[in-house]
């Protein structure tokens, strides 16, 4: 009866929120968990449940999976429009049952915040859990990837089938010996080096003998394929592999447990290639016909990217989310920035103001990020704004950016007024999560105005 009370209360709350035109998709879940703290386990689940977790890519993978399964004609319960914390998953499970508490879905696909495994996994008890990767995240919240792996492994049921990234030695070690598991990977690319570089390097030693691992190929952080020179340890073999990535032709070869097929490339960013092969692996584990797995990628929309680019005259204006507090995410953004051809000018306001206003500040993440990617002759100016501008400037200088290329401004938007756009081929607006809609938008508008004026002056 308590389960039904929780379900009814959550459904009424959801209806009320919708009637009021309010957001807050997790609120029904909060209400349900207040009434029945174990509601995630107590409410009736769809016949099959897939949980998608990991540091990066879990939103993309869960969205693509849900889309593909909908395309299979299944009724899919998911939290893709809501929160990936316990309340969001409770709300999604309840939304998928009727007023009598009976499941109306054929399958559930739930994105799971990796830190929330403790609250969610015992009740959710997924049939399949896919982990995209486990890399460093917020120092304050997530500590280090081994910690997150410990949380997830501690709460996994032994009969959950694991779909894991073979190119991530931490994620690929999830679970216990009893867990059925398959691995996915992206085969070596011509551009992959064999020597790791950067500040955030985990899983560098052999878990069996502590020797420094040797890398067959390395991509970023601890993502790549490694072996121990002193013992038999090596990265697990992947049954599901992406290879022959052709960005121009927009195709990729997906090797599905020895059955190689050409598929449309959903997105050429390496992280999204991992996401695509992860989706293919899960669909195969779920028993979807392989022809249909490949065809599903024909219609799946590219994932939402965290950058936007517009051409203004002969210049390109690029807006790039550079997630302050998470050094690894910043490194990827800086690496991406450097890959653009041409002379570059960068507005960088990536402080998280919420750190100072709402939480306890910790700026150590700046040194977990590889600002060294910004040391490049083509990056001619970096204008830094915000309270921690001198910390940012110091980090840039330590990385090797020449001081003549660095300017600092107290205001987060002032760099947009002062950066020299006259000769830049690409102008970047780097902002963080919480200032995206405030100063990030204003910087974007100002840069757009100035580039438009430049275009006008040149006739």
């Amino acid at each position, binding site marked *: 009866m308590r389960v039904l009370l929780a379900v009814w209360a959550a459904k009424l709350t959801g209806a009320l929120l919708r009637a009021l035109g309010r957001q807050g998709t997790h609120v029904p879940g909060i209400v349900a968990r207040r009434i029945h703290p174990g509601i995630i386990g107590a409410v009736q689940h769809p016949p099959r449940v897939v949980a998608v977790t990991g540091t990066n890519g879990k939103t993309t993978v869960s969205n693509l999976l849900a889309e593909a399964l909908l395309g299979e004609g299944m009724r899919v319960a998911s939290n893709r429009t809501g929160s990936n914390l316990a309340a969001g998953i409770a709300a999604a499970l309840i939304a998928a049952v009727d007023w009598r508490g009976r499941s109306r879905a054929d399958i559930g696909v739930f994105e799971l915040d990796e830190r929330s495994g403790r609250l969610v996994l015992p009740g959710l008890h997924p049939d399949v859990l896919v982990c995209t990767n486990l890399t460093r995240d917020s120092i304050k919240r997530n500590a280090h990837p081994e910690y997150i792996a410990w949380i997830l492994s501690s709460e996994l049921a032994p009969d959950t089938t694991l779909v894991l990234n073979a190119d991530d030695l931490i994620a690929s070690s999830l679970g216990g010996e009893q867990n059925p598991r398959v691995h996915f990977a992206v085969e070596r690319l011509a551009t992959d080096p064999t020597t790791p570089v950067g*500040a955030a390097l985990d899983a560098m030693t052999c878990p069996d003998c502590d020797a420094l691992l040797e890398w067959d190929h390395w991509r970023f952080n601890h993502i790549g394929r490694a072996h121990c020179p002193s013992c038999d340890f090596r990265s697990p073999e992947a049954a599901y592999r992406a290879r022959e990535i052709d960005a121009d032709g927009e195709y990729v070869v997906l090797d599905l447990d020895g059955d190689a097929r050409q598929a449309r490339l959903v997105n050429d960013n390496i992280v999204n290639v991992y996401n695509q092969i992860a989706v293919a692996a899960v669909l195969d584990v779920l028993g979807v016909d392989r022809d249909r797995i490949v065809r599903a990628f024909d219609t799946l929309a590219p994932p939402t990217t965290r950058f936007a680019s517009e051409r203004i005259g002969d210049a390109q204006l690029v807006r790039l989310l550079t997630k302050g507090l998470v050094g690894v995410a910043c490194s990827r953004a800086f690496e991406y920035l450097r890959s653009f051809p041409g002379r570059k000018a960068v507005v960088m306001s990536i402080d998280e103001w919420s750190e100072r206003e709402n939480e306890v500040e910790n700026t150590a993440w700046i040194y977990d990020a590889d600002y060294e990617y910004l040391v490049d002759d083509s990056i001619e100016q970096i204008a830094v704004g915000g309270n921690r501008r*001198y910390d940012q400037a110091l980090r840039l200088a*330590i990385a090797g950016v020449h001081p003549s290329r660095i300017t600092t401004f107290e205001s987060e938007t002032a760099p947009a007024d002062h950066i020299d756009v006259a000769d830049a081929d690409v102008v970047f607006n780097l902002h963080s999560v919480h200032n995206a809609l405030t100063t990030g938008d204003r910087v974007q508008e100002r840069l757009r105005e100035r580039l438009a004026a430049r275009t006008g002056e040149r006739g």
Partner: protein
Amino acid sequence: MSGLTIEMLFPEVANLHGDNANIAYLAQCRPDAEVVRTGLNDRPAFLDRQVDLLYLGPLTERGQLKAIDRLQPYRRELEARFDSGGLTLFTHNALEVLGTRIRNPEMGYEAEGLGIFELETTLAMMGRYSGKVMGPVAELPDEQPIVGYKSQFSMVEAAPGVEGFLTAARGIGRNTSTAVEGVRRGGFIGTSLIGPLLVVNPHFTRALLATLDPDTEPALAHDEYAVKAYVERLREFRDDRRWHPGERVQKPIASR
């Protein structure tokens, strides 16, 4: 003195929270410095040659246990180094390796440390503490306190008489009921502060450089930015509104 030698212990596992920038920055301050990176399976260099600064940085929980295992054979040599004034810096949870015991009930182990200091560490894996710290140190005038951050699972209890690195004027010390932070003994400094310490505290770094090499005028790399960042942070840390109730030292339950 000719070029400095800095030894980083186990950097392949002791590299969390950006703290190895302590050494990267020091090496930029002294471009003539040789940085020796000693792996888990290597013999520490300080045993056989002059090492001016020995450093161990933040570790995972598993890494802590490995560091204890690897340093255990050299406990006496480490202690002798500290007592003879050999400069040594352990940051974040590296200090805990040198204590008597580390308890981690959630991960299911209790490990003996090297026992050089009478420190007992308890980890709460679901109770990570984050906070700021500001406090004066002996090397600097009071108006140039150390500033830094904590983000840790562990709280440390020390026996009476274990000297601290600093006494926090704001923020907590070794645990939530003391303002005494870290440990000092002879040439040893251990602190749980991250930031990294030597990057966000340029005056302290200058003092450390002067101690490392009294014959050379200490020079900070990128000193203009380093000092401005420190001044700005100190200004904010002196503002009461920046401090949350959870960052205050709590009275021990017994004395409330």
